[in-house]
């Protein structure tokens, strides 16, 4: 017994270091799996309020640029509205598939391997996990963690991110991933080799996911080549969004998402 106590006393700093390191590594490794980053995120009250305060000061510096973006978006939407065929009818509640909440980015990051963005809306604005986040220019990411007043968003610049995407005006879809190299280029994989591609083609979100609406813009094809198996393309996509400068975002919620997911889960269960 005496020897054990002596051992612990002699190596106490090493043991302390070892334990703390194991704790840190456990948090890190555990968080590699999907939706486990529960403890370490900036959506909690303390970090959220500090970022909110700092954002309150710095947000004044980009107002004119932000204003220009919003005017452009309004212009685009007005054009859509004037040219839509059913302009004289009012949409009924039952035809609404997506609800939209606006929010502001209070913390952005794009230099890490796993980038997260913090926004100033949370559970009190009925933001939940797995809602899609877009800007006026294109998609941004998916809500990962929420607290009362804040939420963290898993950016598309995150090595864990996979989003269903397709070539505009066709139904060939693939997965959008990020190779962590450049913050303005993401990769679209799993497009079959018989598809006709051109540099400059637009990539939009696909209809396969219940998170984003179909046809939300993502970017344009920068270059493409066949993967090592020579059967699928791997495409570099230039993002429409300037990921370094994002202020206003929209959170879209598919009203039927839980219904779709339940149905899909049931179908898979029945198969087994």
């Amino acid at each position, binding site marked *: 017994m005496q020897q054990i106590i002596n051992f612990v006393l002699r190596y106490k700093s090493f043991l302390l270091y070892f334990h703390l390191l194991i704790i*840190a590594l456990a*948090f*890190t490794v555990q968080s590699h799996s999907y939706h486990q980053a529960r403890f370490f995120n*900036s959506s909690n009250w*303390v*970090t959220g309020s*500090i970022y909110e305060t700092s954002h309150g000061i710095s947000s004044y510096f980009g107002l004119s640029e932000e204003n220009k973006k919003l005017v452009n978006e309004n212009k685009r939407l007005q054009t859509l509205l004037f040219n839509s065929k059913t302009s004289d009818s009012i949409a009924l509640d039952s035809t609404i598939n997506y609800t939209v909440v606006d929010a502001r980015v209070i913390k952005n990051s794009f230099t*890490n391997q*796993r980038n997260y963005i913090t926004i100033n809306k949370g559970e009190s604005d009925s933001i939940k996990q797995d809602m899609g986040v877009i800007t006026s220019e294109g998609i941004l990411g998916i809500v990962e963690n929420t607290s009362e007043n804040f939420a963290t968003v898993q950016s598309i610049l995150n090595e864990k991110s996979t989003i269903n995407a397709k070539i505009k005006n066709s139904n060939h879809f693939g997965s959008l991933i990020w190779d962590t190299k450049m913050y303005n280029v993401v990769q679209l994989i799993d497009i079959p080799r018989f598809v006709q591609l051109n540099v400059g083609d637009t990539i939009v979100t696909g209809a396969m996911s219940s998170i984003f609406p179909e046809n939300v813009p993502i970017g344009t094809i920068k270059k493409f080549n066949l993967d090592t198996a020579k059967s699928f393309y791997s495409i570099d996509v230039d993002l429409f969004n300037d990921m370094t400068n994002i202020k206003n975002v929209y959170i879209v919620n598919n009203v039927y998402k839980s219904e779709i997911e339940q149905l899909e889960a049931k179908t898979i269960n029945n198969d087994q």
Partner: protein
Amino acid sequence: MISNYYFLNIIRFTLLVLVQVLVFNRLNFFGYINPMVYILFLYWYPIKENRSAFIALSFLLGLSIDFFSDTLALNAASTVTIAYVRPTIMRFVFGVNFEFQSFKLSSTTKAQQITFLALLIIVHHLVFFSLEIFSLENFLLVLKKTVSIGLATLILCLLFGSLFSASKE
């Protein structure tokens, strides 16, 4: 005297965390260089203090940075590592005499101080980026990030150090 001591370290801790997350995490120099100046806390921390408390405090420091920057527990792991190896580095840089009661960081030569700081930064960044990137394939990327960001951290730490050391004594 003693309360003053604790007070100074608490202020230092809070200010370094805030400066790190509100200023330096947004620097994005050349698109990816965000210096980690909070390492200065470990450089400034008194040598004669209780070692276990120092390790625990460093863990806490890393963890608070992690909370803000959504980096899981990467900062905590790397900071606790340099807290543990700090005495070894000091013995390497300053020789055995740092264990004497009269030893003071300010009484050493400039070259020794810079070497000490640089070694802390290199070990920290190497652990941090190895864990972040987590693959041997991209070892060159780890080295590239360690060298470039480490250099930026070193320069900024030296500037910060010279800014505040005069009023400290």
